[in-house]
């Protein structure tokens, strides 16, 4: 991961980002406020050796809605666009993420990845995920993963069996859920900002109960 070209976003913008030749861009998003409608972000790798890595953390509470369409287009050889979403939703928050990953015929050597993992922490939270792939060349590394669910029962039991209270155990697991992605970010300030946000998100979730 590259420390230099890193940008911390607090929302997903309606925008088109054009990646230049031999460029490296890192986008980190800490999304705590939802928005209305669907945002459309296009990341266009038009030139050779353009790389972009995005990590988005969604902390949804109340009735916040996070709806976005991320379009990643690989048009030149040896480009990579990867995006990872981690969302924890409580109250009646919802997230709806469409990821449209395209690899054109001349984009040989493309390395692409999209993942969206959501933890639903309350009855009324909901998630929709649609990770799409359109691949027109065989010289490609492409994959995606998605999951939706509540906190893992077996992990919860393990922590409870060591004497942690239900609240402590769930907190550890939700923090751990985000921590798994945080380790890839080199900037400590950004990491801590996100960790602090997760902690206040969780204490809000506790107080609401």
């Amino acid at each position, binding site marked *: 991961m590259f420390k230099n070209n890193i940008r911390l976003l607090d929302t997903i913008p309606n925008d088109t980002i054009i990646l230049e030749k031999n460029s490296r861009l890192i986008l980190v998003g800490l999304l705590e406020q939802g928005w209305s409608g669907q945002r459309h972000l296009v990341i266009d790798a038009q030139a050779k050796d353009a790389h972009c890595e995005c990590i988005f953390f969604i902390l949804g509470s109340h009735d916040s809605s996070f709806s976005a369409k991320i379009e990643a287009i690989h048009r030149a050889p040896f480009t990579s666009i990867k995006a990872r979403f981690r969302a924890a939703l409580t109250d009646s928050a919802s997230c709806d993420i469409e990821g449209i990953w395209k690899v054109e015929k001349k984009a040989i050597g493309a390395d692409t990845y999209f993942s969206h993992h959501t933890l639903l922490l309350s009855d009324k939270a909901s998630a929709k995920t649609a990770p799409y792939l359109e691949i027109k060349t065989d010289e490609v590394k492409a994959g995606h993963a998605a999951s939706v669910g509540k906190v893992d029962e077996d992990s919860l039991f393990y922590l*409870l069996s060591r*004497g942690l209270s239900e609240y402590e155990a769930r907190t550890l697991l939700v923090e751990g859920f985000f921590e798994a992605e945080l380790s890839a970010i080199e900037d400590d300030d950004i990491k801590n900002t996100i960790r602090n946000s997760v902690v206040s998100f969780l204490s809000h979730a506790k107080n609401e109960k």
Partner: protein
Amino acid sequence: MTKKTILQIKNLRAAIGDTKILNGVSLQIKSGETHIIMGQNGSGKSTLLSVLMGHPRYDVLGGSVTLNKKNLLKMSVPERAQAGIFLGFQHPQAVSGVTFGNFLRLAHNSIATAHDPKSVPVGPAPFANLMRAEMEKLKMDSTFISRFINEGFSGGEKKKSEILQMALLSPKIAFLDEIDSGLDIDALKIVVTELVSIQKKQGMGLVIVSHNPKILDFIEPDKIHIMSKGKIVTQGGKEIVAKIEQGGYSALLKD
């Protein structure tokens, strides 16, 4: 010195869904005692441990379990840990994103507070020192403190991590499920030596579950129980194991 009864299990029955697995288990453990529960796969040994720890997948259909005269079955899972039960799992769960050291410190403090609300929580640095001292005895690398719980640990490392937790949480009674599987001879010797030392120091009751008679080469039990079809069918001393070694479990079950 008369030994106190710590754990009393009477006629415990349990099921998973519609399948009955425990059909009336009765057992009594005194402080400082070492018991071994043996039996074939499917006899209900691991289920017994899960039920004692309060795993939500199982339904208790009848019977009673008391720990130091308190009703264990009424307690939540963390309450049971705080009351002094420890379960060393056969296949310890990996919990990605949660650091081993951090989790163990929180568990330790949680249990300490339950015993004495005025106790002062141990901070990360002092606790890491405690961990390192114990890890030294188990020949476990201290880098494990900052790794995610059980993630990428080898079979042997997972078992050592369970023992490490047991050492630092000071339970009144520890149940170890198949502790010998995944450990080579040297590692097993180290683990058992540490186990016995902890037991002596804390007067801890110890129950080891195994299907392998070879466990006796390492542990000197006060009593051996044989489980079959969800019940304890025979109890006794080492002579029982000799019978199993000669004629397999069927030799015993015929009696």
